[in-house]
């Protein structure tokens, strides 16, 4: 299979030619005054190496480099301290510096609430949303239930030693927020066990050390294919569009949404770009265009499909509106769960 992928990757160059040919048509008329980076652009990842955000950032770096999308180098730098606070504070403090961008995950909203470190998306300049990451409710393939209904019945019946254990990445972050949301909707209780990374969580679920997880698709897909885990529902407002069969003839599109299965919870994680405060319109537009080109490459589309992402992409006022709404949702969920630092 890898040779097929290599072929697709090689075809990227041809696709690039098409993209660049289209680019002038997309560019507005004031393009002659357009800003361009004059030195190396730092691409901050507010998370450690190897995680989802890091993978995406390095993927983008590779696409930019290979297709010559920028005249200056793009360098990925991890600033993961304090659940990402280090990276966001760096960008917040780099007023008017157009040579710095940051890729965001949900910790843009959760870290300030959980730790009290002061930053918000409003302290930065939003550039564009690249995609949304999905969350799926997974259980061990040996579990006696095959749907959400059976899962919820067993969850409510369990107590004492049998209490369901939810494994998740980090503490008071997206995985635990979803867990808390399930508890609020159903009145049942989980023991939430925080782990360092999504891969660890999936392995712990296979080994039977936890009862369920809300892993992202890419973190658990290989265990699903191997028949070790099974998905119960996806926390999106609609089913996933990917119809290629993954395991036992089932595809991502066959997983029901949690809402239609009677668990009315929606949660998607932002994969978006922000830059330092007070960036000029030209500077923002440059990066908006850049990421438009990145998203048009076959490599990116392949990546989206592999990770079963929700490919919604926004920029400008729509992106800001999305961020406003997401911030409010997180505040509400975390306050109800008692996760907000006092």
């Amino acid at each position, binding site marked *: *299979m890898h040779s097929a992928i290599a072929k697709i990757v090689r075809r990227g160059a041809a696709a690039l030619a098409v993209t660049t040919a289209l680019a002038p048509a997309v560019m507005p008329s004031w393009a002659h005054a357009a800003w361009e980076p004059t030195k190396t652009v730092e691409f901050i990842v507010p998370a450690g190496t190897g995680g989802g955000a890091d993978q995406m950032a390095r993927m983008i770096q*590779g696409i930019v480099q290979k297709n010559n999308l920028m005249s200056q180098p793009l360098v990925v730098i991890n600033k993961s301290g*304090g659940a990402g*606070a280090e990276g966001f504070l760096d960008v917040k403090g780099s007023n008017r510096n157009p040579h710095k961008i940051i890729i965001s995950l949900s910790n843009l909203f959760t870290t300030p609430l959980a730790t009290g470190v002061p930053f918000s998306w409003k302290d930065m300049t939003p550039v564009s949303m690249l995609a949304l990451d999905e969350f799926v409710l997974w259980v061990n393939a040996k579990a006696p239930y095959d749907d959400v209904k059976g899962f919820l019945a067993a969850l409510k019946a369990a107590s004492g030693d049998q209490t369901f254990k939810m494994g998740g990445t980090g503490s008071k972050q997206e995985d635990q927020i979803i867990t808390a949301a399930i508890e609020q909707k159903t009145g049942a209780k989980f023991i939430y066990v925080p782990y360092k990374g999504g*891969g660890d969580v999936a392995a712990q679920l296979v080994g039977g050390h936890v009862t369920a997880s809300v892993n992202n698709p890419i973190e658990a897909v*290989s265990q699903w294919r191997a028949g070790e885990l099974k998905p119960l529902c996806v926390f999106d407002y609609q089913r996933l569009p990917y119809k290629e069969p993954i395991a036992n003839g089932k595809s991502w599109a066959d997983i029901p949404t949690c809402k239609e299965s009677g668990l009315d919870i929606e949660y998607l994680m932002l994969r978006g770009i922000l830059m330092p405060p007070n960036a000029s319109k030209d500077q923002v537009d440059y990066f908006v265009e850049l990421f438009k080109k990145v998203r048009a490459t076959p490599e990116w589309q392949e990546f989206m499909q592999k990770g079963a992402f929700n490919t919604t992409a926004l920029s400008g006022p729509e992106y800001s509106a999305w961020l406003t709404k997401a911030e409010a949702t997180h505040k509400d969920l975390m306050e109800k769960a008692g996760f907000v630092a006092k």
Partner: protein
Amino acid sequence: MEALTSLIGGFGVLADPMNIVYMFVGISLGVLIGVLPGLGGANGVAILLPLTFSMSPVSAIIMLSSIYWGALFGGAITSILFNIPGEPWSVATTFDGHPMAQKGKAGEALTGAFTGSFIGAFFAVLLITFLAPVIAKFALQFGPAEFFAVYLLTFCSFVGMGKEPPAKVIAAMMLGFALAAVGIDTVTGQLRMTFGSVELLRGFDFLVAVIGLFGVGEILLTMEEGLAFKGKSASINPRVVLHTWAQIPKYWAGLLRSAIVGCWMGVTPGGATPASFMSYGLAKKFSKNGRNFGKGELEGVIMPETAAHAAGTSALLPMLTLGIPGSPTAAVLLGGLLIWGLQPGPLLFVEQKDFVWGLIASIYLGNIAGLIVVLTTVPIFAAILRIPFSVIAPIILVICAVGAYTVHNAGLDIAVMLIFGVIGYLFKKLQYPLAPLVLALVLGDMAESSFRQAMLVSQGHLSIFWSNPLVGSIVTLALVMLVWPLVSKVMARLNGGKEAAAAE
């Protein structure tokens, strides 16, 4: 036998001359990365990852894994010559490696370290070749309680055998635990001991501390003792390599023990750093020359290196078969697999035969190539010691500073490194041991979170540590190791005062 056929197929994949070129490029880069403290294998691989997008996945993984082998080899070089561990897993190598260099035996120490590395890696890759599916299943049995048990075993096998007074060991270790706790607490998501400072958010990175404690501390000590390297008079020629090799076979039992410890820690996945410490501790306890450890014993260099390299290599196994990275570098390689469009997991061995067996074959060849590259450079590296101290010391300091900065791209870390340098100097002057501090700083975080995860799962019952034969036996073994010195002392006393006096 199926494994053998597949392996031959794997060597066939390597027959492409470009792949061999990538391998040598990777190893040379890796050695360089390993030599520079701070710029560890994980960083090096991450930086070079985007360069590999235009290669086929097989060539890409060969080049990146070769960087990893190179870094594993290279980490030993600065540990031995300058007492600066280039990688976390080479800390234990400094304990005897640097004293050997000071005695003018840098060539022997380097040869021993490289050869030990090679033996460890070879053992691990044999294991991967023939037992991959069985071992992969074993890793799945590890829940939080089992992880904590492994860390406890590391601490216990290292403590309780030092020459230093127990109170000093405990004081150093507690300082390490306290420093490891700074930053975000992964279990509650709260900040601890950051005192509202942004710079403290990232906590104290182990690498920055080690560069300061060992590297800068060593330079301060040398300056005090008169600006000269003690190893200056080293006689260095290629015959040293053969001479050292002649000594190695008699350590076969220790080598086997270290390789097993290493493979076990790599697979479980405890990682190369605990493996090297545990192996050093065990060697000190079981070797006939145990009393001389820390003064420049060849065995004390070989054993941790064997275990570290065995662990580093076998860490690829859970990554390939289960998608769990056994080391930070493996985590970055895992990201690479996904980017190249490969899905790590139980089906990789079935669906991507070329890739998997090409990689395994490249481990064999890569380690042979690596050994050749580093051994041929032994005289060159050892010759560095002949450069006057007044010239080399500022260079080392600059390299240390660059290394400390690289870990997190943070300027303050350079100041933190210097402070740790002073602490390292004071520790040596006051005869406090550095190793327990370092060990606690490396593993404190992980030990704490797995303990608390286990407590969450068991709802606060310590009985979880004896809830199944696996975890129960590891914990019991750890506790026995901890109290062994006491037991042996009591037994010695019961046997009459004469032996007790001899043991003093």
